[in-house]
């Protein structure tokens, strides 16, 4: 799957120095290809997460279009887009994103079970083992540390083997060892065919990336992966 973003921008209504509009993302073109891992860095508030949310189909761009293969993302009605996101896009959002009434394994299996499909527990357990939290599969989210919850969210995002994997600060609560584990994991997803897009502050991420970008004031510029 190839993602193409054509001249997308995002403007918010917010008080600024000169107007009541805030341009979070200036006109941007981006292509994400299968089997590639793209890293985006930048300061807080520079527009990184805005771009990721636009690519995930969670935020309507002010201008421009986003295509996944031939499908225009925002031309789909909500029900179709939701199903499409469920089946083709994996998202690791910022922060703690567990459903507190479900245990770890149930949280991981949600991409399947939410739509009434079989849970694929064996695959979920294999992912948890890879991320070193299989022993916590029956634990409730309240019993987990921040790092463990992040790894749970990573497992949940990759369970359906999405063609597009979008990660927003996936290692923000992790120690060095787990950060390496998660990046290796995302790299593996890319090697297995996914187009992976990671928003991060971690310089370590460059080591795993095929392409690197930096966002500054809503403007994205490509950088050398070295």
């Amino acid at each position, binding site marked *: 799957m190839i993602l193409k973003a054509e001249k997308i921008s995002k403007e918010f209504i917010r008080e600024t120095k000169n107007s009541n509009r805030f341009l979070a993302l200036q006109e941007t073109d981006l292509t994400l290809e299968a089997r590639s891992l793209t890293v985006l860095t930048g300061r807080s508030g520079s527009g990184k*997460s*805005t771009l990721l*949310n636009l690519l*995930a189909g*969670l*935020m309507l761009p002010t201008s421009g279009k986003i295509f996944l293969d031939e499908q225009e993302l925002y031309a789909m009605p*909500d*029900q179709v887009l*939701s*199903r499409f*996101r*469920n*089946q083709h896009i994996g*998202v690791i*959002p*910022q*922060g*703690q*994103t*567990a*459903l*507190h*009434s*479900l245990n770890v394994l*149930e949280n991981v*299996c*949600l*991409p399947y*079970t*939410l*739509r*009434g499909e079989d*849970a694929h527990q064996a695959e979920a357990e294999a992912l948890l083992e890879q991320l070193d939290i299989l022993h916590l599969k029956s634990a409730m989210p309240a019993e987990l540390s921040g790092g463990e919850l992040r790894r749970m969210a990573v497992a*949940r995002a990759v369970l359906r083997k999405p063609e597009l994997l979008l990660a*927003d*600060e996936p290692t923000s609560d992790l120690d060095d060892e787990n950060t390496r584990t998660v990046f290796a994991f995302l790299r593996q997803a890319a090697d297995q065919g996914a187009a992976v897009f990671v928003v991060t502050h971690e310089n370590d991420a460059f080591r795993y990336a095929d392409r690197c970008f930096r966002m500054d004031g809503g403007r994205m510029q490509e950088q050398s992966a070295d």
Partner: protein
Amino acid sequence: MKISRSLPFRNLAGKPVRTAVLIFLTALLSLTVFGGTLMITSLRTGLRSLESRLGADIMVVPYEATTKSNLENIVLQGATGYFYMDHARYEKILSREGIGQVSAQFFLASASSGCCSLAVQIIGFDPETDFTITPWIKKSYSQTLQKYDIVVGNDLNAFVGDTLSFYGTECHVAAKLDKTGTSFDTAVFTNQETIKALIQSSIDLNMNTFRNINPEQVVSCVLINAAEGYTPEEIVNDINIHIKKVKAIQTKEMISGISDSLQGVSRIIGILILIVWILGIVILLLAFTMSVSERKKEFAVLRVIGASRKKLAGIVMQESLLICLAGSAAGILPGLLILLPFHQLIEEQLNLPFLLPNSGAILGYVIGAILASVLTGCTAAAASALRISRIDTALILRGDN
């Protein structure tokens, strides 16, 4: 159960205190709606039953019996008592214009001493002319009452085949009447032949306050229905003007006090239902809003995973439906457990006719109360469901950082 279906249930189970409070609120709402409606209906059914049992437009009694409370106590409240007037006055009434159906009744109160099995009001009627008691007795006993046959009210501790003694005279219980929710449930009915014999026995035992009467020459009251073309008011006025030492009363005036009390009780219950309903809606609205607000992040995560806006709204509505159904059950059950076994106690405490509707109607009120709670809960949850279906997922996820 699959997560897609069990998620609302799991969400509720995950917050037991909040869920218990919401269920308690809807239970209170259901209990008030169901219990209040059943109370009002039972009181109205009781009043209708009383009207139907009185069954006549006009009652004529000896003047001395008409210190109104005395008469009402005997006829409406189930107090025991008796009074008599000459049969000649009955004859005079018969001769007046506008009289349609007419029949005499005979009262006697049994004593609580050894001569009587029960201290009750005994009402005798003339089977030839009676139009108020016979149709009602026919529902329980289709044969003609023989001498010393009696029919007992539903609340009396006597059964068909029993023998009851009144002033030393043994009477045979031929039938037991259906419940009416009125003072007639504690009375005994018999034909005029039997009651005249009982009156004579009471006189013989020197236990009747009217010592010099001839039971064959007296009646206690005369019941009248106006003939076509005449109003009860006209007949009442005519009798009161032209026949001495009697008092004619419209039966609807007799029960006007009860009707007023019933309206008062109904109004209070109605206001209570309205207040609880409004409070219920407001509190449930706030509770659902808070519940959804504190889980905005979870709903955003579900959006990320692929839940449509409709699905999110569905989860909120299902949660409210589960709460309302559980709350309805928790409210209606105690309502049934209080009202069904203790309806007689309620009747005694209210001192008003109180007759529970039939089981089909009660089932209807149960369903109605469930629907009212579900409607209230779902209305309160709808605003939250609408709000959550419009969440800005990206904004919520970003807000966490």
